């Protein structure tokens, strides 16, 4: 069986406490980097590991860190993206609720590497238990000398603060998150400048996902070669996969990057309920284009999924069985993006409103002959024409549903009813 590293402690009753984390070798990575490595060496180690960000975009973490200007008289900030609003995704919540010290150690090592003294963890406000557990863990870490002035007797000063979100999916977009942290409505900023140069309070800022930061201590203690030895060369490492929907064993699975989607769904998550078949799988949260059953041999890594027109995204795998109407699924996805559009740009704000109306009409059996072309046109008008990736995510999801399940849309229009009701 694949060794669980990131989830090693999460099923322990006291996995959230410092004594559990320390008993399993916790904070040894932080002590090691402070004792043996310069910040540049830590950045180089993470580069060597080829860790790619686990928040969705898959950008190389070490490279992102190296963009922070070394010669800057401004304070540097580390921000942890714990907003986790992508439907189908719950991996970061489990880490924060059940092994929060893993994240805190990742923050401290990363803060040391980039030269930050302050980190903000931006957590969605719904995650009350995660917020309480992380608050408790931060207090424990301060008392034990892992945070604060002179961490573990070194000259490294570092502290972590929690910033609670208040219900807006767009905060997962990194520049919108910075706006929200600065006390504004969460609307994305124009890039460049990128956050590494001018981020929080116009200072150099690195923004990493919870899972990305949780990988960092393990890379320090086990080495870059260990990390790079798991999964494909270009997307290595252990990976957390969230599986939900119409499947026997929904849950969080730690497996190598690159595992076949079919193996994940049918073997690890137990496949569908008796008498049903997999119809489709959304592999990376609802932003990731749906894959029909015939495509399930694809490897679950950044490059393999991109090659088949989808994406790893947040690795929020949603399984849809053959009793379910794909028009209904597509409608619900577009409704979500419409609801969460921040309103900054017209194609997203207005285009998604229009698409939702057409989709609801089709699902209700009131679709008309030109509706599918209308939806195609709307996708073309939204994709690539919005400020951030929210509009792109909606358009890609709808395009994939229209491409792979067009017959179901046509059946709704021709039969003037939903065939699944």
């Amino acid at each position, binding site marked *: *069986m694949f060794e669980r590293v990131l*989830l090693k402690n*999460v*099923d322990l009753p006291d996995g959230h406490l410092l004594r559990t984390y320390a008993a399993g070798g916790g904070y040894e990575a932080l002590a090691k980097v402070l004792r043996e490595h310069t910040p540049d060496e830590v950045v180089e180690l993470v580069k060597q590991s080829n860790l790619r960000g686990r928040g969705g975009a898959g950008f190389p973490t070490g490279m992102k860190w190296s963009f922070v200007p070394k010669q800057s008289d401004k304070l540097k900030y580390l921000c942890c993206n714990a907003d*986790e*609003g*992508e*439907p*189908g*995704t*719950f991996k*970061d*919540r*489990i880490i924060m*609720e059940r092994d929060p010290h893993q994240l805190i150690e990742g923050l401290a090592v990363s803060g040391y590497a980039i030269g930050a003294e302050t980190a903000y963890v931006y957590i*969605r*406000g*719904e*995650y*009350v*238990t995660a917020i309480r557990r992380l608050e408790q863990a931060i207090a424990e870490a301060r008392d034990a000398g892992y945070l604060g002035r002179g961490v573990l007797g070194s000259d490294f000063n570092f502290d972590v*603060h929690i*910033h*609670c*979100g*208040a*219900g*807006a*999916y767009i905060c997962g977009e990194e520049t919108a998150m910075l706006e*929200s*942290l*600065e*006390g*504004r*409505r*969460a609307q994305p900023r124009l890039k460049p400048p990128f956050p590494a140069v001018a981020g929080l*309070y116009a200072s150099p800022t690195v923004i990493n996902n919870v899972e990305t930061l949780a990988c960092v201590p393990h890379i320090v203690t086990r080495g870059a070669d260990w990390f790079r030895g798991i999964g494909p060369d270009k997307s290595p490492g252990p990976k957390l996969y*969230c*599986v*939900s*929907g*119409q499947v026997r*064993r*929904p*849950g*969080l*699975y*730690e497996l190598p990057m690159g595992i076949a989607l079919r193996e994940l769904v049918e073997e*690890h*998550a137990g496949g569908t309920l008796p008498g049903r078949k997999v119809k489709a799988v*959304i592999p990376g949260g*609802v932003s990731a284009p749906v894959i029909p059953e015939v495509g399930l041999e694809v490897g679950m890594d950044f490059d393999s999924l991109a090659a088949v027109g989808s994406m790893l995204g947040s690795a*929020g795998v*949603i399984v849809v069985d053959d009793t379910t109407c794909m028009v*209904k*699924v597509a409608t*619900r996805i577009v409704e*979500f993006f419409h*609801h*969460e559009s921040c309103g900054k740009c017209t194609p997203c704000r207005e285009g998604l409103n229009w698409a939702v109306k057409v989709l609801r009409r089709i699902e209700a059996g009131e679709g008309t002959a030109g509706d599918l072309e209308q939806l195609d046109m709307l996708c073309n008008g939204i994709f690539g024409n919005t400020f951030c990736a929210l509009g792109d995510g909606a358009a890609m999801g709808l395009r994939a549903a229209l491409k792979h399940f067009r017959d179901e849309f046509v059946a709704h229009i021709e039969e003037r009813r939903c065939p699944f009701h």
Partner: protein
Amino acid sequence: MTMREDIEAVAARYPSRRSAIMPALLIAQREYGHLPGPVLEEVADILGVERIWVYELATFYTLFHTEPVGLFHLQLCDNVSCMLCGAEALLEYLEAALGIGKGETTPDGLFTLDTVECLGACEMAPVMQVGDDYHGNLDVARLKALLKDFRAMAAGQAANPAPASARPAGE
């Protein structure tokens, strides 16, 4: 600590007091239950920031309530994973059992019913958040029992029902 002291403690974490508006609103909402205009102005005054900045945030983020909500705010997730696991039927049950529609509050002020976007607990879909707690793996029987528990709690006859314990992470 008073609300003002709580807000000052949070504001000390940031180099800009504007950053403390969201945390201050969360503190104020816990204190008052919801955020009517005078409360927004009180938050602005404590932080010494423009009132419009506070209004802008209170009306953008969905967890802030400028109108009162019931003692138990039932927030049923009906996003894709929960929808696939039967959230629609649960909404129908709640509407019938409470005699209200989405966004409404029962005349006795006990329950407000809402649907929400993903709660990030899809492994225990369908899920509902009530106050600080998540209740997962719901079906009509569990909802019925929960409503009974909440009513007993309001009458002072029971403690808060235990939240759903998430299943172990997959092997």
